[in-house]
């Protein structure tokens, strides 16, 4: 990997603390424009990782009965039904251009919408972002959450004492406590499989290659090409989410190509790692402590004793 790329992907403890045993930083590029909503990723993840079932009944939210990521759902396929004109055709200036784009979208596999009745469907498989600056890891008091040699973020279940600090710290609402178990759980990016040179279960099961696994630097290049390709086909609403090192979490290890604003998928538009402000947090704590000390001293002024 070229060194400038490596610098861009660097985290607080990867690759530095691993020395020679550091592996390339691995991640996911989830291209939601070719997701067909089959949920094979959800099933494969549960099977491989022995994630307990999480039956919640019928949600009434389109085909989504998983509803959110959680301790027992490490992949979650969102289903959004919108009444919007299709991007490629709506953006075309005349019939000829519309026809050209229609054939381009066929050729490039962009035709994933069910467009009867003018409804478009967005489907997207969400997952832990494996942030470059990960709040869950920063706030974990036990060190149960750690950065692996692949640059991913994993909970060690034999260390976690269930303090729950990571749960509200995560800006994406990914990690959660398992009720009957007391500990927190989330996607490990199949750490056990990575160590055996296997790809994560969800990526292997994905029939359309919407979930792509690989070295993060390569995935970013691939995503950039895909974005340009889509823009050229008139899909100007396509956007990369988490593909840059300059965002509030210094880039995602698992990033996305989306077809609408992130919040439409239940994702925060401008997530910021809470510990970016930890200096201010401590300043507040010590200002409060000083005020308390001053207040106690003041209580003794003017009295008899």
């Amino acid at each position, binding site marked *: 990997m070229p060194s400038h790329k490596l610098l861009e992907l660097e985290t607080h403890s990867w690759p530095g603390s691993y020395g020679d045993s550091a592996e390339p930083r691995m991640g996911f590029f989830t291209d939601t424009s070719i997701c067909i909503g089959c949920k094979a990723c959800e099933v494969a993840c549960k099977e491989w990782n022995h994630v307990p079932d999480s039956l919640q009944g019928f949600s009434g939210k389109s085909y989504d009965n998983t509803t959110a990521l959680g301790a027992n759902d490490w992949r979650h396929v969102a289903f959004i039904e919108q009444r919007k004109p299709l991007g490629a055709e709506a953006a075309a200036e005349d019939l000829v251009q519309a026809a050209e784009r229609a054939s381009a979208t066929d050729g490039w596999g962009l035709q994933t919408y069910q467009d009867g009745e003018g409804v478009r469907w967005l489907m997207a498989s969400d997952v832990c972002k494996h942030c470059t600056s990960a709040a869950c890891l920063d*706030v974990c008091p*036990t060190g149960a959450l750690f950065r692996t040699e692949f640059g991913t973020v994993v909970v060690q279940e034999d260390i976690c004492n269930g303090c729950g600090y990571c749960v*509200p710290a995560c800006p994406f609402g990914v990690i*959660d406590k398992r009720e009957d178990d007391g500990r927190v759980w989330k996607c490990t990016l199949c750490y056990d499989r990575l160590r055996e040179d296997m790809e994560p279960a969800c990526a292997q099961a994905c029939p359309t290659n919407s979930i792509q696994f690989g070295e993060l630097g390569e995935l970013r290049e691939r995503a950039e090409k895909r974005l340009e390709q889509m823009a050229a086909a008139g899909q100007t609403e396509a956007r990369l989410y988490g593909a840059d090192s300059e965002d509030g979490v210094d880039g995602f290890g698992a990033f996305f190509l*989306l077809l609408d604003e992130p919040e439409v998928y239940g994702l925060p538009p401008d997530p910021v790692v809470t510990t970016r*402000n930890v200096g201010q947090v401590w300043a507040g704590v010590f200002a409060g402590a000083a005020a308390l*000390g001053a207040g106690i001293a003041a209580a003794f002024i003017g009295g008899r004793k």
Partner: protein
Amino acid sequence: MRGERIRERSMVPRAEPQSYYGQPVLKEPVWTPEIPFYFYTGGLGGSSAMLALVAELRGNSKLARRAWLVALGGVTASPALLISDLGKPSRFLNMLRMFKVTSPMSVGSWILSGSGAFTAIAVGSEFTGLYPALGRAAKVNAALLGLPLATYTAGLVSNTSVPVWHNARFTLPIVFAGSSAASSGAAAAALTPLRHAGPARRLAVGGAVTSVAAALTMEKTLGEIGEPYSRGVSGKLTRLAGGLSLAGAALMAARGGSSRGAAIAAGAVITAGVITERWAVFRAGFQSANDPKYTVGPQRARIERGETRGAARRAQAGA
């Protein structure tokens, strides 16, 4: 439905932030009811240790000895509450596996451990007369650690993604400082003979008023993010806390110096007020995390104001 009556204070009508079926973006905290009570006991213990030390330095040993006992009670109850909150209580010692400044819970675990140990030594020495030199050193350490013990819990909740907590990182520690002062003052004023309890009464009154004023300031400076403090359970708790704290402070100021019964009653009312205040803050975090508008709204507004591009990027024009 919550979220339908929000823009009362907003000048320009804005579209409701978009969301995925109205679902939260964040996970709500998984902390149990032990935690707001711990905010109280930690503040009580920490502030009482400093109250005891200063009383002792001023020669008020009647007040000092009672405050030391209250401090010991506070720092003894605290770890019990915290361990009971854990998902795996048997692993509570894992809290001391490391020391991480990015985790106020980690630093706080060390502060509480140190504070507990020093307070126990201080009280042991005070009441047995054994090892007076060690006792004096322990008292100073317990008092100095007591101050951050009382306020780090504000930093702990501020250091999350929950908007109503994170955006209060400068104001919430003052609320907690006031509540802690009020807690320790109220307890000592109730336990100490009237003639020796003057400083405790003043601390109780000053702390209660400070806590209420700081909470109002916090709510105001939070703007729309502070809405949970005027709505739902947290709104009710906030109003109740303010009423109790101010009523208790008024009684303490008016009659606390002349009637022991009034001092005890005022101490109890102030204590109820500050515990309610901790609960109001605790519940506000849940309300804030549970409604996506508090998460998405300010983030989208940052992007619209051009302060940040956010995490999403479209293809560059002409690409």
